[in-house]
């Protein structure tokens, strides 16, 4: 009995440690005060300012576009390449293919970011959307490959062979047999890539240009210039958004 109490208290304490700062931001986002943490009065002022902040909204849209395309391209290429290799059933080839991605996963973002800064300068690629896209595709790809490889390895090769035997073209087999079976893994890999890209600060810091602002860098700038409670409102909105996504995901899971 006592043991259970200790256990539950510890678990709750860690979760509280992770959430208390976030809840504090949510609480302050409704507070009508610029600097103080004391409660003044309920107000939606910071939300109003958030929605009217054109720079912030622009960078949010840019971040969403960037995360969508970099994750889409990275997922598409990773899925096709990994599936092709698994279908060949050559353990050695697969091992060789995974060598670089497994190295890149442990390489700190900072080294990658500095590397992008150098190579983009050498190749004379202008800093902006294209440079960010290249960088984000590259750093997402290893994580995406490793998140799908276990699922792809479980794919029953006989379905593929049977489809070909029955006269389906390769493209038709991909569309009608392989993709539907792998789709849950592909979707979760896409979301992993999306989150990684959307959240990245360090790599973007080195490769972003002045014309294409993205959300993490805008937030970084705001914090360094002495933050406004707008950021608290942004935090509240993100948490609300995650909550909705989780509820939808749970609902879908229950249904299937």
């Amino acid at each position: 009995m006592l043991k259970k109490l200790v256990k539950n208290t510890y678990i709750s304490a860690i979760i509280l440690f992770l959430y208390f700062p976030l809840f504090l931001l949510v609480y302050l986002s409704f507070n009508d005060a610029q600097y103080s943490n004391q409660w003044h009065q309920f107000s939606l002022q910071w939300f109003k300012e958030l929605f009217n902040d054109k720079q912030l909204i622009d960078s949010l849209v840019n971040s969403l576009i960037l995360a969508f395309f970099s994750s889409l391209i990275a997922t598409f290429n990773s899925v096709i390449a990994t599936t092709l290799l698994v279908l060949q059933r050559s353990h050695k080839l697969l091992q060789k293919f995974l060598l670089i991605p497994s190295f890149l996963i442990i390489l700190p973002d900072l080294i990658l970011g500095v590397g992008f800064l150098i190579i983009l300068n050498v190749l004379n690629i202008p800093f902006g959307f294209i440079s960010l896209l290249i960088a984000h595709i590259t750093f997402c790809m290893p994580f995406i490959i490793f998140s799908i490889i276990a699922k792809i390895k479980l794919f029953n090769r006989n379905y593929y062979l049977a489809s070909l035997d029955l006269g389906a073209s390769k493209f038709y087999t991909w569309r009608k047999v392989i993709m539907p079976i792998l789709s849950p893994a592909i979707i979760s890999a896409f979301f992993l890539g999306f989150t990684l890209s959307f959240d990245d600060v360090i790599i973007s810091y080195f490769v972003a240009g002045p014309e294409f602002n993205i959300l993490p860098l805008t937030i970084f700038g705001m914090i360094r210039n002495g933050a406004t409670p707008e950021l608290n409102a942004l935090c509240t909105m993100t948490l609300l958004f995650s909550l909705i996504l989780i509820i939808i995901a749970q609902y879908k899971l229950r249904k299937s």
Partner: protein
Amino acid sequence: MNTKNIFPKIIVSWLLIFSLLPAIMLVGISLLTPDISSMVHLPVTFSHYKNLIDPLFFRIAVRSFFLAGLTTFFCLLLAYPFAFFILNISHKSLVIILILIPFWTSSLIRTYAMVDLLKWHGTINNILLKLHLISTPLSLLYSNYAVLTGLVYNLLPFMILPIYNGMQSIDQKCIDAARDLGATRLQIFVKVFWPQSQKGVINGVLMVLLPAMTLFYIPNILGGAKSILIGNLIQNEFIFLNNWPQGAATSTFLSIILVIFFGISQSKGMKN
């Protein structure tokens, strides 16, 4: 030439061009001389590596390792019992989701939340003042303590998840067998459970120790003038000082440390 392997080949060459090639160029650049217009030029020099022995750099390096080590230690201290406790509770998946949700908010905002907590008129000072434990607010923000707190806060889930995954794959039968053979709880933990959970611990340490040195935005936001870490140094050398060779030398130094850490952890993993 077989067409089947075109996609894998595209990916491998893409990764080579955009990640491994720059890593090699980084080493090359670290041996050149800085230049204002073209960033680098000849002649080859080792002076940037000599600068790394400079006491000023040495102090920053030691501080980085120390702070990263402390971060790893605290994360491990908090995460190991946590992963152990949630191993056999009924709402396991709920707790895991709760651990993952903070990931979805920007890590910058999570770091910024620490500012609200630690600042002069922040929540912690307000609570302590109300409880009459202190008479004047403590200056918690812009210190190495604040950086440490921010790092632990940001990196804790990266320690919990690998340890939890490692523990989950431990065969319950081994534990049952040990119990049947008369081992005490302590013996079971020391001789059966701990050795098998070590692989997860090593993965967790790798996930925390290296980022702790390179997440430059956390010292930028929470630290003071004395909280510069290696990551900030590299950031400054590339972005503000435009001294690419020095930045490249520092990055190369960091990469060498990383390879050493990785080598040690892999050889430890092999032994188990």
